[in-house]
């Protein structure tokens, strides 16, 4: 039973690392298209390599998630909250994989070279086509909004578990090491 009360340590590390990256990414994305200042240029320079880093980590995280089952939710949690948790977690996985891929494809469709750093360039994954660009660009925009709203819901739900219900759900993902069971330290 001890085994299943917390997430795998690597899962927790990935969760908090990616939380910082994804939240930064959402703000960078929203900010870079909302200014004509130099921030536009340097935020755009960060946006692309950060997006690819999130994509790679999301793949690693998905593999870990499929290998290690997360700890079960409290038995007394209402069904709708269980379903919401399940749906929002898979939605988060889907979005953190889809958004970087759509962003990458969108740049290819727009005819842009996809520069990660200096002259390090990613290969095209979509044909150069303005109509495809427009669809992908707007999809990127609305899915980013969906990711932001899902993140706010996820943050609120985490706080609800940690502050209101105090049911151990937030603790299961908390970055500190779980305390060793009391009996084994007795002695």
């Amino acid at each position, binding site marked *: 039973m001890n085994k299943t009360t917390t997430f795998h340590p690597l899962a927790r590390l990935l969760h908090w690392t990616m939380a910082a990256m994804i939240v930064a990414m959402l*703000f960078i994305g929203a900010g870079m*298209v909302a200014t004509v200042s130099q921030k536009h*240029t340097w935020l755009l320079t960060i946006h692309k390599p950060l997006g690819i880093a999130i994509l790679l980590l999301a793949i690693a995280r998905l593999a870990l998630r499929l290998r290690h089952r997360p700890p079960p939710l409290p038995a007394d949690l209402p069904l709708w909250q269980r379903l919401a948790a399940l749906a929002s977690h898979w939605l988060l996985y889907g979005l953190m994989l889809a958004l970087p891929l759509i962003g990458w494809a969108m740049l290819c469709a727009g005819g842009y070279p996809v520069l990660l750093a200096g002259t390090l360039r990613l290969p095209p994954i979509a044909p150069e086509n303005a109509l495809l*660009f427009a669809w992908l660009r707007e999809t990127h925009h609305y899915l980013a909004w969906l990711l932001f709203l899902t993140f706010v819901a996820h943050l609120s739900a985490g706080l609800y578990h940690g502050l209101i219900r105090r049911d*151990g759900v937030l603790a299961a993902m*908390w970055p500190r090491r779980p305390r060793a069971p009391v009996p084994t330290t007795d002695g």
Partner: protein
Amino acid sequence: MHDIRLSLDRAARWTLLGGLALTTVAAFGYVGGWLAPRRLTPQRLVDTLQHNGGLHPGYRRNHAKGVCVAGWFEGNGVASPYSTAAVFARGRTPVVGRFAIPGGNPYAPDGGVPIRSMALRFNGMDGEQWRTGMNAMPVFPVSTPQAFYQQALAGRPEPATGKPDPARLAAFFAAHPETAAFRAWAKQARPSASYATERYNSINAFYLVDGNGTRHAVRWAMLPLAHDAAPGPAGDHDYLARDLQQRLAQGPQRWTLRITFAAPGDAVDDAAQAWPANRRSIDAGVLVIDRTQPQGSGPCRDINYDPTVLPGGIEPSADPLLAARSAAYADSFLRRTAEQAHLPGTAPAATGTAR
């Protein structure tokens, strides 16, 4: 087990939860510009250009009237000691370009403004690109995107006359002395009869970066080899595209790429200030344009000539107009491609017409 040991009552804990969520949303709203109504966003800038030129779905929001061209650049290796960019080495680089006139109206008369523009995309063999948007004028009127926005606001047409209010324009120029160099040029400039006889200037400065990583501040220009410049014919609104077709029927049109180096103290980050005429320059090769297509069906239609798309060996300067051009062009590109794609919420683009 308790997650967070806080001696707060339940109401305070709900308030903390709600407060954190709301703060996150408000911060996002601020960064995204929705809660920052005074910030100059690309959308506000392009909205103003669109208002001035009228809404023409599928067209660029500025320099809306133009033609596609294609050809190549023949590098001569002279610029290679100053930049590692492959385009400067000896040899050919294919080019997709566009000539245009300023303004958001694709039906504007060619003789309405004395400025013509040349945009180029050099397609490097290795997938690298160099995009540049140049103008046939020596300097930009203003130094900052904010001043450009003010100029666009001052230049909005009056509903009664369809022309800007002269008093409002005069007030803008009086409040912006940095426009003096541009105004002195504009006073004697006449709309030319041809795209082919114009000298096109990068206006903004950039850095060439050599093999040692040393940066050289430069501006560049395309100097025409055709010297029969003449004022445009009166009473004809659409002579530029026809003139270009006629010239290309005779043979390719050529320009020399001249790169001018800044001297210490020259204004690298201010496009409103010219550099003295005696600055050292080199000729890096020849641009050859050998064909033209209508912009509605030509390959330039779907290219965003963002001047910050650069190959290794060329870097943008800190000129604030460069970032603003990149941000605003991206917004204009999204608007017109979304209209072409008939995305929900966009005005229907006229299809198959000259664009």
